Each structure stands twice: as C-alpha cells, then as structure tokens.
C-alpha cells in the first residue's frame, strides 16, 4: 500500500485561515457520523467540511453533546466516519485499517486529554519516551529529559503518575504529545480537570511549545477564553457547524 505524501515543509509562518489554502494538514469533506444506538440511528455530525492549514491553531467549541469529541476523534483517526472523508497530512484515513491508522498517529499526531491519560505503570520519563521508542529513534532518553525540562518537570522523571498532581500530569502528557514532533496536535478539554491557575500555566505551555515546533493545534473546549487564543474558532451545535471564523487578534508574542 502506498500513500501520497506531502513533501512541503510544515514550518510555515502564521497562516490566516482566510488566506488562500496553501497547505492543508487536515482536510475534512462531507463528514457525517451516525451511531446505531438501540436500533435507532442517531446522527451526531452532519455534513462537516473543514480544512485546517498546516501550522495554524483552531478551537472547536459548542454546547455539551454537540459532537465536539466525536469530531475530534474522527479527525485524529480514532474512529471511522459514516460518510465523507478525512485526510490527514495527505493520507486518506478512511481507507486505512486500524493498525495503519495507529502508525499514522505515531508518525504525525499528538494527543492531550482532559484526564491526562498517562500510562499508570510507567514513570513520567517513560511516558514521554514511549512515542519515540515506538518510532525506533535514537537518543531517546536525552530528548525525553529535555522535553520534561521544557515543561518544568526535569526532576520528576522517575515519578509515577499517581505521585504527580493533576497539573503536573498534564504537563507530562504535553511533553509526551510533543515528543514525536507531531504535525498536528489534538487536545480535548486540556484544562477541563484543572483549576484556573494551573490551567493558565498549562495553556501557556501548550501555545509556547506549539509555536516552537510549528505544530498545528486543534483543541476542543468549553472555555471561550481559551478558544479566543487560537486563530480560528469553529462553533458546532447539534452536529452542524454554525460558524467558522478567523480571529482577528494575534496571540501574544
């Protein structure tokens, strides 16, 4: 099986979504998702079309139950769509098997979850190392230590997740998310489980690291303040996109 490749560099300077689509890291066309629950079909996403420029940041917002998590899962190749297509970094996810999609995730995708999702039996350092090890890279430990340093947890590498606070766990998961130098980073309510102060720190880290690596960032949130920090806000309601607007502001340098 061969795939199309997108050979262009990803380090594009800030691309406003309203500019002509130079280079789309994520391309969603006519996406629908229908669940078969109790014999009754339930369509939670209707005909979604989104294209995300490489290196940009976007937020998906909407009321609870509107389908945000479902959409994110589809974008990241965690689930299969009922209709339409998802193209990630030029790879059509719909035609891939689950194992092939796993490989795509390892190569191109990073995740941050609301409940951190660190592997409980691995230390903080090992959690950061896993994606690198999976890629069979070299010099893994040094790079993982460096990443942990960037999130301010260099000293806590040998601690297990249960020995860390929620904020610390989320920072470890950030380090892990960036460890494989992903082209695109998905975050589902990254601050949902954190207090305001800790949230602020984590958010700052996300955007700093993101900028540094030139990663595309897609985050799902209720928090409009957080959404406002992205370049583009996609609002959905009842499985429909109700608005999709570029932000005029430029995030704080």
């Amino acid at each position, binding site marked *: *099986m*061969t*795939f199309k*490749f997108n*050979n262009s560099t990803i380090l594009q300077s800030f691309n406003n979504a309203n500019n002509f689509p130079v280079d789309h890291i994520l391309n969603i066309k006519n996406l629908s998702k229908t669940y078969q629950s109790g014999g009754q079909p339930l369509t939670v996403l209707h005909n979604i079309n989104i294209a995300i420029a490489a290196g940009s940041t976007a937020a998906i917002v909407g009321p609870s139950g509107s389908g945000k*998590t479902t959409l*994110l*899962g589809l974008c*990241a190749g*965690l*689930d299969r769509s009922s209709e339409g297509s998802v193209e990630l970094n030029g790879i059509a996810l719909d035609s891939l098997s*689950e*194992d*092939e999609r*796993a*490989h*795509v*995730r*390892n*190569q191109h995708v990073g*995740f941050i*979850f609301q409940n951190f*999702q*660190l*592997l*409980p*039996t*691995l230390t903080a350092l*090992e959690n950061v190392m*896993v*994606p690198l*090890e*999976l*890629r*069979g890279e070299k010099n893994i430990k040094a790079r993982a230590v460096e990443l942990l340093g960037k999130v301010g947890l260099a000293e806590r590498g040998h601690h*297990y*997740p*249960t020995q860390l606070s929620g904020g610390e766990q989320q920072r470890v998961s950030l380090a*892990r998310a960036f460890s*494989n130098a992903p082209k695109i980073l998905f975050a*589902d309510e990254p601050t949902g489980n954190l207090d305001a102060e800790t949230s602020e720190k984590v958010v700052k880290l996300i955007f700093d690291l993101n900028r540094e690596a030139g990663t595309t960032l897609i985050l799902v949130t209720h928090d409009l303040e957080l959404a406002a920090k992205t370049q583009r806000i996609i609002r959905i309601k009842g499985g429909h996109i109700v608005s999709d607007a570029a932000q005029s502001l430029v995030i704080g340098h």
Partner: protein
Amino acid sequence: MTNDPMTNPTKRKLNLPWLFLMAWRDSRRNRSRLFLFISSIILGIAALVAIYSFGDNLRQNIDDQAATLIGADLVFNSNKPITPDVQKIVDSLDARKSQERNFVSMVLFPKGNGTRLTMVRALEGDFPYYGTIETVPAAAGVDFRKGKEALVDKTLMLQFGVKVGDSVKVGQVTFRVAGTLNKAPGSVGIQSSIAPIVYIPMRYLEKTGLSQAGSRIQSSYYFKFDKKVDMEALIKRLEPKLDRDAVNYQTIKTQKEQTGRSFEDLTRFLSLVGFIALLLGCIGVASAIHIYVREKINTIAVLRCLGVNGWQAFLIYLIQIVGVGFIGSVVGALLGTFIQQVLPWVLKDFLPFAIDITTSWGAIIQGIVLGVLISILFALLPLISVRNVSPLNTLRMSFEETRLTRDPLKWLVYLLILAFIAGFTYLQLKDIGQTIAFVIAILLAFLILTLIARLLMFMVKKFFPFSWSYLWRQGFSNLYRPNNQSVILIVSIGLGTALICTLFFIQGLLMQRVALSSSGSQPNLILFDIQASQKAGVAELTRKQGLPVISQVPIVTMSLVNINGKTGVQLKKDTLGKGPSIRAIGREYRVTYRDTLTGTERLKEGEWIGKAPANGDIPISVEDRYAKSMRLKIGDYLLFNVQGLLVNTVIKSFRTVNFNRIQTNFLVVFPAGVLEQAPQFYVLLSRVPGSKISAAFQSKVVDKFPNVSVVDLGLIISVVDELMSKIGFVIRFMAMFSIITGIIVLIASVRISKYQRMQESVLLRTLGASRNQILTITALEYFFLGFLASSTGVLLSLAGSWALASNVFDTAFHPQVLPVLGILLGISLLTVLIGLLNSRGVLNKPPLEVLRRDV
C-alpha cells in the same frame, strides 16, 4: 519524511526488544497480581510433576526390585495338589528350590484367647532368594524355619497384644512366635488387613491337621537358578504342560510387566486427577486475566493513540503472561518435587516396596513446559481481545465493551484448548475411546457445574431479598457485581466439594450395606470349611453356646469341563462376544444342592426344579448376573467334573440373589438327590449378640475344630472400613489439590477486585458506613459465595451418589445430613475468612491513601 517506514506499515518490524521492555514496565506495578493469577496453576503443575516424578521413580524401582517382589527366578502356583507330571518338571529343574503351601485358616493366640482368620504360609527351603522376609528381630525371617516357630504379621501382633516369645496355635500345633512380620516378598499392605500372614515351617503342616481335603490350599514352588538359564526358552518349553495342569508361573520379567501395568494404572489415575486440578486453575487464570485485561483497557487505548498496533499491544501482554507463567511453573515444579517425597507415604498401603526417591528432571521439564503452554492457552482467551481495544476509549470510557467478547479468533482458541485437553489426556491414557470419554466427562462436569452455578446466580437475582436489611442486600448484590468471579469460584470450589462429598457418600453407602445385614435376626457369623464328619459336632457346639444354627449348607467343589460340548480351547476359537465366555471354564465352582429357593433368592427366568429326575441331565439353576456376564442361556448343557465324576447338567433357571445380606450365596445350585454322596463340606450361619460372645465362641470353635474358619461380620465391617479409609485417604489427598486450587483462585480473585472494592468501601465510608458495617457486608458476600459454591458441589455429588446407589449398589440412598451440613458450613466459613483477610487493607487505611494508590 519520505524515508519514513510508512510506505508499508504492515511490514513494520515488531521491535521485539521494545515489546519486552514495555511488558516489563507495564508489569512493574502489578507483578504480584500477575503472579497471583498464575498461582492458580502452581498446584496443578505441582501435582503433575509430583505424580510424574513418582511414576518415573516407581518404574525405576520396579525394574530394580522386581526380583525381590517374587523372591525367586521362577515361581509355580497351583490351586490343586501338584500332579505327578508337574512334580517331574520340578524335579528336573537344575535349581535351588523352595516350596510353600498357603491357605486361609483361623489361628489362636492362647495368651488372651484371641482368634482371627489369617493366611497361613507353610514354608520349606531358603526362599526368598532375592530380598528378605522382613521381621523384627531381623534374624527371625530365616531362623523360624529351624524350630517350632512362626512369624506373625505385625497387625495381628498389635491387635492381640502378642509379643515375640508368646505362642500362636495353628490347627493342632502351638508355635513360638519368633518374630514380627513386617513385610513378606510381594505382599501389599492392603492385603494384610483382610487376611494377615502367619509363616510356619512346612514340616509342621501335616501335624496342624489343616492340610486335609476340603481346605483350599495353594501350592507354590520357588526356583533359583545359579547357572545362567535362558528363561524365555525354558518357559516356552514348559508352558504347555503347566497350562494343562492349571499351574501358573511367574518369572521376574512377568512380574515386572504385571507390577508395571498395575502401577501405570495408579499413576494414570492420579495424573488425571492432578490434571483436573490443573484445569480448574487454568479456568481461574483465564478469568483472572479477563479482569486484568479489562482494567488495562485504558492503558491499551492510550498506547494505541500513541501508535501501538493491535498485535503489538497483544504481544506486550502475552509476554507478561509467558513470563509469570514460566515463573509459576518453575515454582510449581519445585513444589511438586517436594510433594513427591510425600507420595510414597500417601500410597504406602498400595505399594509393594519402599520407593527410592530421586529428582526426575524429565518430569520437572515436562511440568514447566506444560505450565507455560497451558497458561498461554488459557490466557489467550481473554488476551486476544486486546487487539480490538479501540483508541476511542481514551475519549469515551468503556466504548463498545461488547466487542471484547465477539471475535472469531476466540473459537480458534477454544478449539486449541479442546485439542490440548484431548491431546494431553491421550498421552496419559493412550486409548482413543477412553480419551474421548474422559474429555466428554470433563466437559460435562464443568458444564453441569457452570449451569448449576449460573442457575443459582439467576435464582439469587430473581428472588432477590429486597425486604432484607441494607447490609444483607449489599452483600448479596456483590455476587453479581461487574467483573465478578462468582461462577468460576462456584465451579472450582464446587468441584472440590463434590469430590470429597461423593467419597463420603460412597463410604456411607458401603457401610450402610454391610450394617444392614447386621440388623434384626440376620446372620452375622459364618463358619466354613466344616467337614462332613464335623457337621453335627459344630452345630452342637453352637447350640451349647446358646447361639442359633440359622442354616447349615453343604458345599461341593467342582470344575466345569465343557459347555454344550465345547471345551475351553474350542470356545476360545469362536468367542466373538456371542457364545458362552471362556472365563466360565477353568474356575472352581462351589456348589450347593437343595429342593427349595431360599428367602434371599427369586426366580428370574425358567423353571425351578428342586428334585433331580431319575435319569437324564441334571436340571440346575444359575445366578442371573453371572449367567449374563458369561453369556449362558437357559437350555445350555454344562458338563461338570465333581471330584473325578463327570455329571451332565442343563440350565433350567436363572435366580436373582440379594447379596445385601450375609448369606451363603451360590452361582450354581443343584437340585436335591444328586450330590448327597459327593465329598463335601458345610457352612454354618449363626448370629452372635456381641463381640465378646463372638470372641469366646470363636476360640471354642478353633480349639475344638481347628480347621474350621470363622468370619465375623464385625471383621468384614472393619475390613471394609479400613479399606475405604485407605482409598479415601488417597482420594482426599488428590481432592485437596482441587480444593486448594479453588482457594487460591478465590484469593486471587479477591485480590484482583481489591481496587474496585477499595473504592466502593471508601465511598461507603465517605457516605457514613462504619467499619463494622463494611466488614459485615464483606463477610456476608463471601459467605453467600462459599455457600453457593459448596452447595453446588453437594448437589452434584448428591446426584452422582444417588445414581451410583441406584445403579451400582442397588440400594436406596439416604445421605447423611449432619456431615453434609458440616462440609457446607466449613467451606463457607473458610471462604469468609479468606475474603476478610484480603479486605483487611481496605479498612485499615485512610480513605485518601486508598483512593490515590493505583492498585
């Protein structure tokens, strides 16, 4: 990024070292738990390794000690007096020779006036040539032959408080007891409980007066060749002559084969019981891993998000299982090597010699391989679902849980397991029919137990006691909490209980049967081998003691020459399951004659003829079951040899006999008017009110009529009891493996669900439950579990015993209620104890610490 291995992701290398690393890391925080899963199979492996090693040692020992089992190079045995032809053979052999004559007889210990039925062996010559007659003092085994001395079995010495130097009266002769007999060549412990051995020198046999006609005497010749002799050729030459005169022979080689065969059966039986324990453990492993995997779903989902593919995730956990499976098997093999030291002691009553124990590496390796194989096989069942864990679980917990159970690969694993069980069983039994039977039996047992367990759970759910207090309801409902192991526990503890209960019931059944005949005015004392000349005297003596002569039955011994004109050789030719069995010919028949049926007999078929016609064939009656097994029919002609006189008979009727009562029961009954003049002896039935009177009567009989043997029902009861307790001990020992495996599975499963319990308990405590309330809930839960499990076992064994009682023993089955209640309660309480001990941690720690700790 074009150099990325992406071009062919399916061919991406598995990166084994990393998988091992991940398996190691992931196990780090639950290694003790993983080990706990595997501990369920430790005992099974231990049992098998012990039994295999034991079997190896036994084979080795049989090879080494076969010679001492028969004590000579060649042995002749005959139930009849040696014919001149055979005597010629004996004389012609260039060897050292010994002769033995043995028979069952009463002996009397004058000190205390004790009498008992024994096996008297009169010996002449230097036998045994290999090994020794083991006695205390040691020299007595050889020296008793020089004087008027006897060797007396140690059980007899104990029973009657006899010491070396005391005397024993055999027939008319009083011997000095030269030594305590510990072991005679080839005798097995269990034989001595029926008829303990007394050795006397041959030259006093005549004087005892016990060698006269009517007594059943077996003659043996022992040969030791000092020069090298080709035994094969010798046997080949002698066999036809020996066969013709009904002389059995044994050589060291035949002895080896015979002993080997009987002990192969024993070790085979034991290893199958061990295998059942192992299977129980395996099911424990499967269900524990199932829960383990469920708890790991989130971890697996995260790994999949990070790019681990299905097979990699599967391999990470498979590696863990193989690792702990290996450790568990090594521990099991070590344990088995220790248990092996105990086995000879457990089986001592069934072994003909002391076993030298050596470590059997073959058995150990076999055990380890088996352990790893079986843990993989059974872990595979829950493990293959790891491949299907969706990364979506990271976003939404327990997504599509049902997918865990639907996987076509599962059927392949089931098939593999079935194939494994069948294959393993075949290796043990080497017989396809038996293998199929065993596998089906195992499947059925597990199926039935599972069904009963499920039914019980269903009943609990259906008739849930909503009106009970909260604590009871909570304890009750814990039985079907998610991830519960109720069914597997019920099956494993139930199977152990069933084994023990069935044994107990059967023991009860047998005792009940024997005891039945001792009630009312049924006879409970038999005097046999009464000579015709003694008939009146014995009856008179009996009456003089105030005891009834319930009946006095004549017995004539005869042999069957041919059936419908066909001799044994001819029958052998056309024996294809149609004609009469050859086994009917060649045995000795002890026949009585009378003109009526007795109270314990019923006519089943044909016509009872009580009086012989003046001429023509004699109409006889044959016992129904014996006739069936020998495939005899009404109208068959039997030619009997009545001590030299040929008598033509024809089968006219079949009788059923109630063997439940002590009675003189006969396979063949002649009508009156034929055998009255034939050489015969009598059996007298009486009833004694107590053991004291019985003992006094017995010693009077032995004193006056030394050749008459007396069997007291009390003796039979004690023999059956002893036998049952010896067999029972071995079975209990093996059942113990299954019970302990059940307990380990219990401990493991309690441990596994500990975290879940902790959270619940903490929640309950937060909601205001007191320590005692939580304790009560836990105790109640385990009590219900133990009670359901043991009642499942009891139900199964009740059904099994009932079937046995009505089909095999032909009696009504009245289970003993109290002991069964005891077993039920005992196992339930044990379960409670283990449950409470394991939950201790939850109660003694502050809630926060419990919540923060990850398992």
